[in-house]
């Protein structure tokens, strides 16, 4: 029997997310964004959250709605400012939300490190820039690096294309983005998929996220 739970509804999928949790949220723009899970998290009520995601919400829905509901203490992301990020912009300018800006590749690699048991890593990105201020530096073979620490999630909310009952996931096109990395980096990984299939219906050669990383799956038909 698989340890992955196929959830009956969105409330079951997000049950048990605590106040103060660090939540990794997949997606790049709307591609791969687990919108139903985010809506369910708003209904569930957890607050004082730290959100790790590439962006800080668009328009009034999804992450922006979670921010607007006052549930988020801090955002860790690479690119908060967008043409329609007015919810985040307003909170930030009113000093009602904290922001840690992380280069996009460091965001991904710091989560990869968390999922892979790496204590920290020396990275050349950002050397000599304000984002390296205060970080431990080292020169290795003539190149300068700064030390970057893992980003671990209590929970990951990700979007995928198809999941099977063993938790194996495949993605679709550029909607893959942060999903496979975030799935490895959280204690509780919850995937929103457009279809759940039986074990054996996904060719093992095409599985991108093995079921070991996936705790709960919610089917949301497109």
């Amino acid at each position: 029997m698989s340890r992955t739970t196929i959830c009956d509804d969105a409330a079951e999928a997000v049950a048990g997310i605590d106040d103060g949790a660090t939540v990794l949220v997949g997606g790049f723009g709307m591609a791969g964004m687990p919108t139903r899970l985010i809506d369910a998290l708003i209904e569930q009520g957890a607050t004082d959250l730290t959100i790790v995601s590439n962006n800080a919400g668009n328009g009034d829905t999804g992450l922006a709605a979670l921010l607007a509901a006052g549930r988020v203490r801090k955002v860790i992301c690479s690119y908060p400012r967008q043409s329609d990020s007015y919810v985040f912009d307003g909170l930030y300018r009113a000093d009602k939300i904290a922001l840690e800006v992380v280069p996009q590749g460091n965001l991904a690699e710091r989560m990869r490190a968390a999922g892979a048991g790496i204590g920290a890593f020396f990275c050349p990105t950002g050397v000599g820039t304000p984002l390296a201020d205060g970080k431990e530096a080292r020169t290795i073979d003539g190149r300068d690096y700064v030390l970057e620490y893992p980003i671990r999630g209590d929970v990951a909310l990700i979007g995928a294309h198809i999941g099977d009952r063993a938790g194996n996931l495949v993605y679709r096109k550029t909607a893959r983005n942060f999903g496979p990395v975030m799935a490895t980096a959280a204690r509780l990984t919850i995937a929103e998929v457009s279809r759940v299939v039986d074990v054996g219906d996904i060719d093992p050669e095409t599985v991108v996220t093995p079921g070991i990383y996936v705790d709960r799956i919610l089917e949301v038909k497109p």
Partner: protein
Amino acid sequence: MTATTGHRTVEHLDRGPLDRNELAAVIARDIPAGSYVNLGIGQPTLVADHLAPEAGVVLHTENGMLGMGGAASGDDVDPDLINAGKVPVTEPPGASYFHHADSFAMMRGGHLDVCVLGAFQVSRDGDLANWHTGAPDAIPAVGGAMDLAIGAKSVFVMMNLFAKDGTAKIVPTCTYPLTGLRCVRRVYTEHAVFDIDSDAVRVRDTFGISVADLRARMAIELS
């Protein structure tokens, strides 16, 4: 157009400055056939329109695709298939998808040949500033700019040469917060193309302006 050999400067004085599409075409011509290339958001995406299909240049988009096609329209629009600017694109034969950590490993690991980025300022040493004005009320947002700056084998900058106040954006020292140190190889502007070499800034071509006039308007030495 006259070919440039070595570091001899070619002055194109029989014409005005390049428009954006002409500038994109000049950059496209300088990208070697078969290169793996990342085009930054904004003006640099225009370069794609001028790459000859037979050159076999493969476009990388940092949100997780190699062999990216052009902008999608009509029935080809798929919300799961977008570029780094979140614009719907197409999937030509030979394309591949990968997750974000792989995409940036590809970049940071030195596997991309060229990236083309916009800039606020480039210093004479090749320092790049393109992510933050440093204004107190500005919301900082870096995206993949720092990863690209240190990752690609050759970093090309595409920008207007002069700021709104008339000062040149190639400067002795950047005053805006830096994106990367000593990372820019070449700067393409509407008035001239510059090589940022370790010992000097060299003018490759000028368009509608002489090197003498360019010198008079810039605060750095030009070779």
